[in-house]
């Protein structure tokens, strides 16, 4: 006697066998039904488990590692992983062969396209062929001006090794930038170590950096001091309700809370303008690698251009 499986119309032709062997008084039909139900339960359980496993694995393995960058126009990572079918058409149409599809076991989600800036950066093609090739919209065709691409964000991570921070004029990362003077600028600062030179600090601006990776690729050091990360990793965010007083002031043509009383600074009379930064410069502490150039150890450009023109007494003796 055959039993049609409701799901696929198969004929499960095992009805008679268990009855022949069975020593218990049980009708062949009920034995077959039991086997069938057991089988289906196992199948359902196994199937769901496997799918669940795949789902969980996909969740756990979906944070993009620090050195993997998506092609231009890529949707936000979560949306990208919903949209990209891992076809590699973008890989094929990139004339510089910078893109690669991740293999199983790599930290990048299996089969998705990425590039590694230090190996080979994006050349920022004017016609953006990778975006045009994508059939799914994982690379968004809204991106028509490559300068608007946001593949990642460069950050000068190592202030201790960057040659410009050491007072030399390397400038390579600045000079290779396709968006030079907008994405990356050289900020002039007083060099408190020599007390008579300038430091030209490469400074990345998030509103213009495309994350192409050229700067990281060209950093002359054995290990790049400037690195490009996925934006989520490289960028902080202010709380939504924060307002910058000086910006509001400029926008409204005056302080929103009226003119404030200027209080005298006490206790620093006669010293070097009372900047605590001057003291930390000579202190032999390593600067926090993540610290932005405007934070310690060096005074911010505004301070440098303001009261510090006269030169800091950094206690440094030749």
């Amino acid at each position, binding site marked *: 006697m055959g039993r049609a499986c409701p*799901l696929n119309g198969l004929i499960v032709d095992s009805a008679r066998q268990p009855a022949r062997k069975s020593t218990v008084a049980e009708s062949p039909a009920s034995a077959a039904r039991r086997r069938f139900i057991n089988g289906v339960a196992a199948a359902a359980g196994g*199937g769901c488990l496997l799918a669940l496993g795949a789902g969980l694995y996909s969740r756990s393995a979906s944070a993009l590692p620090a050195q993997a960058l998506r092609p231009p126009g890529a949707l936000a990572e979560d949306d990208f992983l*919903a949209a990209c079918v891992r076809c590699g058409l973008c890989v094929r149409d990139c004339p510089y062969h910078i893109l690669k599809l991740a293999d199983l076991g790599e930290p990048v989600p299996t089969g998705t396209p990425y590039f590694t800036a230090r190996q080979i950066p994006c050349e920022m093609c004017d016609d953006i062929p990778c975006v045009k090739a994508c059939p799914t919209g994982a690379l968004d065709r809204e991106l028509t001006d490559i300068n608007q691409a946001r593949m990642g964000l460069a950050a000068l991570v190592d202030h201790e090794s960057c040659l410009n921070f050491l007072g030399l004029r390397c400038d390579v990362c600045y000079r290779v930038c396709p968006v030079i003077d907008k994405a990356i600028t050289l900020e002039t600062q007083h060099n408190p170590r020599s007390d008579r030179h300038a430091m030209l600090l490469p400074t990345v601006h998030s509103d213009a950096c495309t994350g192409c990776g050229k700067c990281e690729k060209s950093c002359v050091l054995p290990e790049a001091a400037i690195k490009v990360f996925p934006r989520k990793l490289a960028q902080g965010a202010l709380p939504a309700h924060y307002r910058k007083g000086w910006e509001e002031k400029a926008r409204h043509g005056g302080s929103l809370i009226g003119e404030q009383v200027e209080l005298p600074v006490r206790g620093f009379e006669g010293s070097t303008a009372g900047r605590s930064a001057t003291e930390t410069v000579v202190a032999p502490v390593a600067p926090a690698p993540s610290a932005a150039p405007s934070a310690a150890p060096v005074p911010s450009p505004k301070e440098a251009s303001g009261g510090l023109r006269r030169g800091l007494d950094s206690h440094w003796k030749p």
Partner: protein
Amino acid sequence: MASLPVSSSDSDVPRSLWQRQRWLVLRRLSQALVLLAFLAGPWFGLWIAKGNLSSSLTLGVLPLTDPLLALQTLLTGHLPYAAALTGAAIVLGFYLLVGGRVFCGWVCPVNVVTDAAAWTRRRLGIKTGRVPDAATRYWLLGGILVAAAVTGRLAWEWVNPVSLLHRGLIFGMGGGLFVIAGIFVYDVLVASRGWCGHLCPMGAFYGLLGRTALLRVSAAKRSACDDCMDCFTVCPEPQVIRPALKAVGQAGPLILSSDCTTCGRCIDVCDKQVFKMTHRFDQRSE
């Protein structure tokens, strides 16, 4: 089982090697040509098809997309561009016409691996193992669709052996090899035809497209069958043969089950030339 008296008719002419391997050779040729279409570009600079089975562009004009993947994408909540949707519609139409699992027999690269595993298992005479329920693949198919909807991403593509292998062959492969080796070992040691016949959700999906297949195998000369069981031994879905060959639950000689991959292997191995490749409306039987 084959205890019936074997009616060895003397008129049997020994068939040539070509007659005995014809469909297998054609099938391997088809699988190789599909792969070559993708590889001619990177190898010889001759761009026929770009991409891979997940989505591709042939000769710069014909988009093709795996409809199961397009379905999963829709379930994640992303609406793909027209290129991907058109591609999926073309592929869907094609397999609805010729038979869904033609994909498995004639295109899918994993089929070569599982055929090799089945061959190895037969050669070594391995009979052990436990075959999962045939419905497992449908549960798995349901599972991956649910996973796409719940996680909001193409979860199955992290591990899908079919795309792993095909993408790997074209774009380079490392870790994916372990999954493929796993399938081979599983099919040899644990379950006969375990992957393609019982687990693969892609096979299940394409199977669902097989209800209207025009291309079908028919046991047209079933009266000549001498119960040698050769076709049952080689068939990747042996349960599909009986209704047609032995007229169980159906009168006609057509193999109508959508699980049949239209691989034609039964035609190759049958010395009585019971089977032939034909169309859906050919009910003739001798």
